[in-house]
């Protein structure tokens, strides 16, 4: 029983990391209809930025929040420079541009920081604490806490602030929003900024476990896609639930289901396919109606 609880907590921790990247994907998908395939690589670059800051002597948490700010700016600039021009073009064009970004960011990180695997410090201690007889790692609890706080802040931002309302309106109905004076273009840029922040969080949380290198986010992106599809690409809450569920499922499968860890990715892929077959819109997604 204690073992099971440990596995679930560890699963929730990795699930939280998937959830924040999945949430970033959903934010951009809802606003622009584009799946941002570069989300993982942007997160990887952010993580390298934080690593650089820490190497230069900054304290971890200072570097953490500074990186979030930098990531936000990077996200906004990318939207303005490369995504803006393809707005209104076919979705295919937008997606291919994000693929270009993916490849570019990967090459950029290789060029600047090299391909060597680097150790990345964790903001939490590696010891365990005793909760009702179960040893739980502080690292896992910390990751879960950071994810939950980020999601809660984001929720509050969208529900309680005027800017959040404007962003929701711009995503839902751009034309009507424009008529009532919302600057839709800037709302989209802001969305990209927020998505980059969420991605940076997931990158900095996952780096201590998977170690820092330019390809570290590829699998995480795939899990995040699986989580987003599971929850429904249009549902932010679904992305969070999907991420946590996927994290726990994968962890339990590896621990008890005799699934070797090398097959975790294929299992996640199979999960996407099964979900698409049974519930095409995901668990919480809106069903897109089409008339012919």
């Amino acid at each position: 029983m204690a073992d099971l609880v440990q596995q679930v907590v560890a699963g929730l921790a990795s699930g939280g990391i998937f959830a924040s990247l999945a949430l970033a994907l959903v934010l951009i998908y809802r606003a622009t209809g584009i799946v941002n395939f570069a989300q993982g690589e942007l997160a990887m670059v952010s993580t390298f930025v934080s690593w650089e800051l820490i190497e230069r002597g900054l304290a971890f948490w200072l570097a953490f929040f500074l990186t979030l700010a930098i990531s936000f700016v990077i996200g906004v600039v990318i939207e303005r420079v490369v995504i803006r021009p393809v707005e209104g073009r076919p979705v295919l064009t937008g997606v291919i541009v994000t693929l270009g970004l993916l490849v570019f960011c990967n090459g950029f990180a290789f060029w600047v920081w090299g391909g060597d695997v680097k150790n990345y410090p964790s903001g939490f201690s590696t010891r365990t604490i005793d909760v009702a007889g179960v040893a739980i790692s502080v690292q896992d609890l910390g990751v879960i806490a950071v994810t939950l706080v980020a999601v809660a802040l984001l929720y509050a931002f969208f529900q309680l602030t005027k800017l959040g309302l404007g962003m929701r309106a711009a995503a839902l109905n751009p034309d009507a929003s424009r008529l009532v004076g919302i600057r839709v273009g800037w709302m989209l840029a802001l969305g990209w900024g927020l998505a980059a922040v969420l991605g940076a969080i997931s990158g900095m949380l996952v780096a201590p476990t998977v170690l820092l290198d330019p390809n570290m986010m590829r699998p995480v992106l795939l899990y995040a896609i699986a989580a987003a599809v599971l929850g429904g690409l249009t549902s932010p809450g679904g992305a969070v639930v999907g991420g946590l569920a996927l994290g726990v499922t994968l962890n339990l499968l590896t621990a008890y289901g005799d699934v070797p860890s090398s097959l975790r990715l294929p299992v996640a892929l199979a999960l996407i396919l099964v979900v698409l077959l049974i519930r095409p819109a995901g668990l919480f997604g809106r069903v897109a109606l089409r008339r012919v």
Partner: protein
Amino acid sequence: MSARWAILAGKVVALVLFAVFLALLPNWISDIRAQQFAYVGIFFIAILGLNIVTGYAGQISLGHGAFMAIGGYTTAILVSGGPKALPGFAEGSEYLNLWPDFLEGGFKDLYTIPIGALVAGIAGLAFGLPALRLPGLYLALVTFGFAIAVPQVIRYLDGVSGGTAGIQLFGNPNLTGATANKVDLPGRTVTFNEWLYHLTWAIALVLLVVAWILLASRFGRALRAVRDNEVAAAASGISLARYKTLAFGVSAVYAGIAGSLYAIANTFVNPETFRADLSLALVIGAAVAGLGWLSGLFVGALFVYFLENVASLDFLPNGIESALKTPGVPDMVYGVVLIAVMLALPFGVGGGLTRLFRPITNRLYTRGS
């Protein structure tokens, strides 16, 4: 002669000139360059296949490298004679019993190409069936996962695939001309590299003509209708799921053939041969070549091959060559070119060529009518 026929005749002449150019090219280039152009031909086939599903049917596949892997591994396993040829398998182990005896001697390399195509095609249909019933970007999402997952699965199935070590084909007697480094063609004897060149480009040209005919037929029109307006296409009685899945299957066949040829040319496969970045490189090649055009494919294939293999860039000025050999720089070039093409020239080289010839074609149409 009406304008339509004149333009068709012009295209046929261009194709024939292209074929003649390809046939003569080995006379002007070194042996190693011939091998490089053989790889260009392989990329040509794969990008052509991807263009059918992405350029004509409008469905992004980010997993065509994985279908190349399926074709390539089919060829490698069949040529090598399967698990029995792999080290580390004791007599009587489970895998060996599943493997029919008559396969033990291995297949001649050429026969494995259609088998690789078939296996990849079936995989494509099986895979496209669920993904393509759904609207939007689901195919891109699922195939992206496929591209990442397939190398893992290959590693895991080490009993059939040789795991991380891969399958070595060099020196295998089933591989035409690899050991003796000479192949007897009708009329002359050529080196292994030149043989690869002729083999890949002969297949590439046949596949180009097949694709051309296919895309000019009812099938091709249906694909373009699906791409341009799904609702209108469905209203005209086109089954969206069926045509998307068929297009995906056909393009998987193309990728499978390219993979088979890759295994033969490389004389070695391992999971790294067909890593996920290969799939992305193919998308980039298709975008550069022009999504929905066939005339730019050669340029797209050249671009992808030479950036994938920076060691082959020795013909460039020294400064540019060494800059491109810095790790990470080719990928940055890829990214910038891809974004620039999508922003400035969304129809790629092929679309650019069409625009270039438009004054002439327009004139033909006005005179003809």
